């Protein structure tokens, strides 16, 4: 029985060490204070216990220096905790540029993972050690939460929206994957494992899986199946915008604002096409809500990402810096935008 008793979780990601360190430092600081209070109270309880039924304590009401001290010192301590916590949070939340990009769809009650190479996994996630992995996640129903204790990472997965999380495994092994946001009857069954593998094992795993095709090629299939290709031609003659080179570029929309065509924007354009219509086009695209599943959208996004730039134009850098304006026709586009993740930027 005792062999089952564990007191500490695995520490297997690039941030887990610092989280551990911060945690135990907090335990040390708070533990010391708690112990001091306890010892003080017990000491008073014995030292000043009532020895005579009519006895009265010292009639002291306040002591300003002492009170100021125990207001200011905790405040400073707390500010330190805040600063460190915030810095750590920033590190946990901001993905590096060279991450492997995977997609996860949560639904009652399973995790579906899609690799760009085409592998699909359910309640399992295979990743290489030593490379950051970024997950773009969404839910098909209630809110879920992607939680890997060994990586000290957790992110709610919301329906109708993409959220992201990232981690870099540092130790090969098999780690728990939990859903941490209550999502219904079999919430506690929405669990799985993350397999962190050495790069070589990972390569083997990738090739052994032997999927029919990459995620992008699946997306291409859907691109034709759902009739996208009927309007979205890869030239400027179609009734709809040319999607080549769209990904991660600024797009001017009909209200005059500019948005970045990231995953969220592409998803929104499929599910609510009239929300942000590209400047110069009519809102003729049908609404695919309820027609297409989140997993198929993911494949379509992978396809659009893989389309690459228009022949003859410069390949944008992978981080999306200095992007070119993406517009209906050359020359219509407004000034370069700096917005991110589909947020609005007022036209100057």
């Amino acid at each position, binding site marked *: 029985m005792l062999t089952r008793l564990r007191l500490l979780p695995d520490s297997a990601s690039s941030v887990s060490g610092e989280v551990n360190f911060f945690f135990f430092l907090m335990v040390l600081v708070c533990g010391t204070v708690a112990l001091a209070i306890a010892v003080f109270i017990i000491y008073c309880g014995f030292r000043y216990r009532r020895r005579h039924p009519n006895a009265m304590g010292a009639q002291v009401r306040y002591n300003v220096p002492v009170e100021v001290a125990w207001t200011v010192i905790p405040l400073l301590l707390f500010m330190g905790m805040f600063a460190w916590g915030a810095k750590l949070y920033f590190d946990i939340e901001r993905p590096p540029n060279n991450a492997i990009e995977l997609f996860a769809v949560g639904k009652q009650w399973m995790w579906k993972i899609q690799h760009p190479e085409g592998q699909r996994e359910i309640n399992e996630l295979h990743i290489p050690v030593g490379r950051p992995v970024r997950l773009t996640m969404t839910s098909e129903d209630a809110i879920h939460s992607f939680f890997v204790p060994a990586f000290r990472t957790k992110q709610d997965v919301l329906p109708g929206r993409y959220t992201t999380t990232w981690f870099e495994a540092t130790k090969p092994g098999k780690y728990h994957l939990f859903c941490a946001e209550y999502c219904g009857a079999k919430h506690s069954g929405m669990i799985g494992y993350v397999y962190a593998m050495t790069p070589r094992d990972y390569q083997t795993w990738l090739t052994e899986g032997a999927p029919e095709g990459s995620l992008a090629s699946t997306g291409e299939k859907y691109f034709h199946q759902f009739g996208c290709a009927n309007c979205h031609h890869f030239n400027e003659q179609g009734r709809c915008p040319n999607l080549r080179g769209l990904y991660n570029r600024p797009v001017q929309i009909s209200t005059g604002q500019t948005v970045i065509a990231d995953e969220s924007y592409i998803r929104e354009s499929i599910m*609510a096409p*009239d*929300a942000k*219509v590209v400047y110069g086009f009519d809102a003729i695209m049908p609404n695919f809500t309820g027609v297409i599943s989140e997993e198929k959208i993911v494949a379509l996004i992978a396809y659009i990402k893989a389309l690459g730039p228009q022949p003859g134009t410069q390949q944008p850098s992978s981080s999306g810096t200095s992007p070119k304006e993406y517009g209906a026709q050359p020359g219509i586009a407004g000034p370069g935008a700096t917005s991110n993740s589909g947020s609005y930027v007022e036209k100057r």
Partner: protein
Amino acid sequence: MSEAATLALREQFATPRQQRETASIGMWVFVVSEMMIFSALFVGFAVYRLSSPHPFDIGSGEMELTLGSINTVLLICSSFTMALAVYNAESGNQRWLVLFLLITMFLGSLFLGIKLTEYYDHFRDHKVPALWFHYAGSSAGKVQMFFIFYFIMTGLHVIHLVVGLGLLLVMVVRSLVGAFSPEYHTPILMTGVYWSFVDVIWIFLYAIFYVPGFHIK
């Protein structure tokens, strides 16, 4: 101290002044609490309006601006007549007190009638979310969101207005039996505070639901 004031003094209070002030504080705290009820809806509306301003403008364009404006004027006038009722209660002028209370009730009922007419128009135009909603243009979901907030907020306001009318009726009856005097008319004061609060809420509803749609028509 008049007999009415003495009779109205509850046993937990020492003086009529203490009783009056306590009532006033209680009423104002209640008003602030009511304000927080609407505040949640205002915050929700602000969030959605900010994220999709154009569909919300379209929604405002569906509002009947004449009726809305008339209603605003009606409620402002009713607050005025309510204030006059309070004024006459202070001077013990029973007849005028009852008259102004009745005018206030009349204006309030008129508002209610116009509001219900508007609701009927929305129903006719298929603008009632869930029951009968149809919007042909783009972003129908967001336009519907506008109407959801419109119906919840104005509906809640109408409920408050009806409660106010009920209070006024009670005040009319109590005035007629001579319950109030220059020394004791706290219930009239409190009714006045409540009624003006209902007016305040409407003024904000008018600003957020009707005004942005004027230039669309």
